[in-house]
């Protein structure tokens, strides 16, 4: 009896281990998501300071009749300084530097962009919400503590007192950070955006798709429909299986050694990134496509052949269309993996600091995951929340792609 009890409690223990393992794994998912969302949500708002801006033509050396090109080229730095002086009168030089630091360094570009949109405002006064510097932003968001000794703070006591004064006047406000979604990278966290990286990844994925999908589909058609199993197919098959398990960084070395080194394609462009990702995705697509070709019943082929279709017509008119949903599902899942892949992008140079939004697959660019990596390496607190926000965006894209794959499978796939 004793031994039966022992066995039963062993049974209970074992089951508890299993439950514990499942719960712990699920807990990891939860904690990962929580950490990212709690650090990243701040990136979607930015702190602004309201200020009177007088577009004094003397400071920018333009006038009402200036061309757009001249407006674009003018220097707004002096104007920016003047705006600060006007809004904070009676500052000595030291105080001025401290107050100027509270506004973003790129403040002059904000003035320029406004004037380019409203050239009639030259010589007039307006009230503008000027972006605060990242350090001030972090204080306002509560990410930097205020109650530590002054030496440990990036914002000193004087700046805090100015901030409190501005707050009490109702001039400090938070606005939705559109810049994050529309701008390229920047050295300053408050003006850094992710759009350049998104476009870089998009171009890379387009290249990846246009390489891997047709070739993967045709290769699987050849292996499944046209060739009898033999030595050649065995070699190709072993090859594909091994290729699927090659570490991604090795594909990056292939891109660097072959595509850039031997063929001479340019460094850090989405074209090379897309091709490398395509090489990686190819095995995934071939494996999925073969499985879905195999699931098309032989009766379809026999029916087509029986009414006089050639082999080619049978395959292209009947088998491929029926297997396409499965192939597409595999392709989208493969592309989702490719989107999250960072190491190959590091190898082919898509991790540089790129301010411009790339206009095509031959422009220098970063990718979404490599931008995340770049930001995560930066020490500033402002980039920390950008990193998390970038991860949120990346995860969002992955969720969309995987949902699309599931929907295609559910809606279109024919069950035989």
């Amino acid at each position, binding site marked *: 009896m004793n031994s039966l009890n022992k066995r039963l409690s062993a049974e209970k223990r074992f089951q508890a281990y*299993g439950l514990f393992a499942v719960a712990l794994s699920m807990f990891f998912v939860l904690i990962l998501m929580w*950490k990212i969302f709690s650090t990243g949500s701040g990136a979607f708002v930015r702190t602004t300071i309201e200020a009177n801006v007088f577009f004094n033509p003397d400071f920018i050396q333009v006038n009402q009749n200036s061309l757009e090109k001249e407006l674009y080229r003018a220097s707004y730095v002096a104007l920016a300084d003047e705006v600060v002086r006007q809004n904070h009168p009676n500052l000595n030089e030291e105080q001025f530097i401290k107050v100027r630091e509270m506004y973003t360094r790129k403040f002059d570009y904000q003035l320029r962009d406004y004037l380019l949109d409203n050239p009639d405002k030259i010589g007039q006064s307006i009230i503008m919400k000027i972006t605060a510097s990242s350090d001030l932003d972090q204080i306002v968001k509560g990410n930097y503590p205020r109650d530590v000794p002054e030496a440990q703070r990036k914002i000193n006591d004087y700046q805090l007192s100015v901030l409190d004064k501005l707050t009490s006047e109702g001039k400090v406000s938070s606005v939705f950070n559109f810049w994050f979604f529309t701008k390229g990278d920047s050295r300053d966290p408050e003006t850094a955006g992710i759009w350049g990286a998104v476009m870089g990844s998009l171009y890379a994925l387009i290249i990846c798709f246009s390489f891997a999908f047709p070739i*993967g589909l045709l290769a699987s058609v050849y292996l499944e429909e046209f060739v009898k199993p033999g030595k050649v197919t065995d070699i190709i098959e072993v090859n594909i299986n091994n290729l699927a398990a090659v570490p991604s*960084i090795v594909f990056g070395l292939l891109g660097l050694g072959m595509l850039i080194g031997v063929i001479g394609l340019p460094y850090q462009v989405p074209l090379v990134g897309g091709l490398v990702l395509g090489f990686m995705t190819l095995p995934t697509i071939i494996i999925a496509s073969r499985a879905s070709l195999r699931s098309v019943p032989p009766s379809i082929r026999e029916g087509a052949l029986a009414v006089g279709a050639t082999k080619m017509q049978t395959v292209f008119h009947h088998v491929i269309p029926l297997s396409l949903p499965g192939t597409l599902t595999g392709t989208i899942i493969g592309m989702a993996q490719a989107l999250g892949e960072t*190491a190959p992008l590091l190898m082919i140079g898509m991790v540089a600091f790129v301010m411009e939004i790339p206009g095509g697959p031959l422009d220098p660019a970063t990718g979404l995951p490599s931008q995340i990596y770049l930001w995560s390496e930066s020490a500033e607190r402002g980039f920390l929340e950008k990193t998390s926000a970038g991860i949120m965006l990346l995860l969002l894209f992955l969720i969309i792609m995987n949902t699309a794959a599931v929907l295609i499978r559910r809606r279109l796939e024919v069950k035989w």
Partner: protein
Amino acid sequence: MIYFALLILVIISYLFYYIGKKRALNLKFNGNIKLSSQPDYFGYYVVLMALIPALLMWFGLLLFKGNFQEMFVMSPILFPDISTWSDGKLGLILNKLNNLSVIVNLPLDDLTNGEKSILNMASENELTAAKNLANFDKIYGWSNLTLFIILPIILGFLATRSISGKLNAQPIVEKIITYIIKGSSYIAILITIGIFLSLVFEAINFFRYVNPVDFFFSTGWNPNRAFVVDASEGFDKDDLENAFGFIPLLTGTLLIATVAMIVAIPLGLMSAIYLAEYASKRVRDIAKPIIEILAGIPTVVYGFFAALSLAPFIKDVGESVGLPVSAESALAAGLAMGVMIIPFVSSLSDDVIKAVPQSLRDGSYALGATRSETIKKVILPAALAGIMGSFLLAVSRAIGETMIVVMAASLRANLTFNPLEPATTITTQIVTSLIGDVEFDNPKTLVAFALGLTLFLMTLLLNILAITIVKKYREKYE
């Protein structure tokens, strides 16, 4: 330009499909000629005839663009001493000319001050060369466009004219498509060959500088020592002796992978067992996708998490019990990697466990065994080979994983088996030796390819081993 050309190509091919089909239909109905193929095939025939030569030539032009460019720009007339230049200098000048060519033909007003000073600093010959380069780009662009438009049009018209009752288009089209399909399936092999060749060639270059015995068996890893030596002056052997020692990287990789497996194997296997044998369908349907989310999260996210939260947390915990823990401990990277691998282990083991025939379970229950006894004494032994295979695949993935270790592990080599100390890995060193530097002329960058080759062979070996084990096991029950 190139996108425009591509668009035109698409339009041209559609037009030719239409023209070819139209002509065939015309022959059939107005000329009363009996065609030997369906009209569609004449359309395909014309398109293929028009496009394939153009695409092949375009690809050739693309491949040799660099060579043409150099022939055109780097002439001995402009640079009399060009034959004495080293590759590095050639690349540098070419790069400079590239930058110059963008601005050399612009009106002075449109240039920024920086661009003006670049122009002023360039010599007369360089400016001429830059102008040549700009011209070359123009000529090259136009020749591309010509290829994309004129060549297909000529060929297409020739092909259209050749359509007659005697031309049997279908077998020709099918033959060409068969070749295309066949070619596609060989691309997988080409990629493997490409990987192997690019790794081997550069690795051989590396081993010219560093003795393979030193590389594989020495225990010092200080690649920066090679960096201080000027590449053009040749290397002092003594400098390199202890600079590239593979051993600390190997131990670091194995240490982190071991930590990862200690996390992933029990959790992954137990989850798989619980979900396959105990959980109700409802629990399974909820828990399985959630765990699989872990597999879909990009590794850069794990790396960020490990560096930002896990490593400081472990450091704090360690210090609170009086253990000195490094901020870049192998433990943090290993734990994050372990979490990443959990779904990998669990879904592979799940497949294997499910493949065990129900009759084995029934037999065990009939003898009075409890569920856990059945699992431990019947199912796991029966599934053992497959589970081992999945472990090996997981190990190979852990060894090849890059981002987590790049972000969370140390850059400094450290020969240790203590997971609380920092350690570096093969993949980390590949990344650090190549980031921002693409001159393959010194051992510091070339070592990446030697490391890559080693990594490639290690993972290949593990995969082949795993697949062999799994195959053997499958044959038993099928």
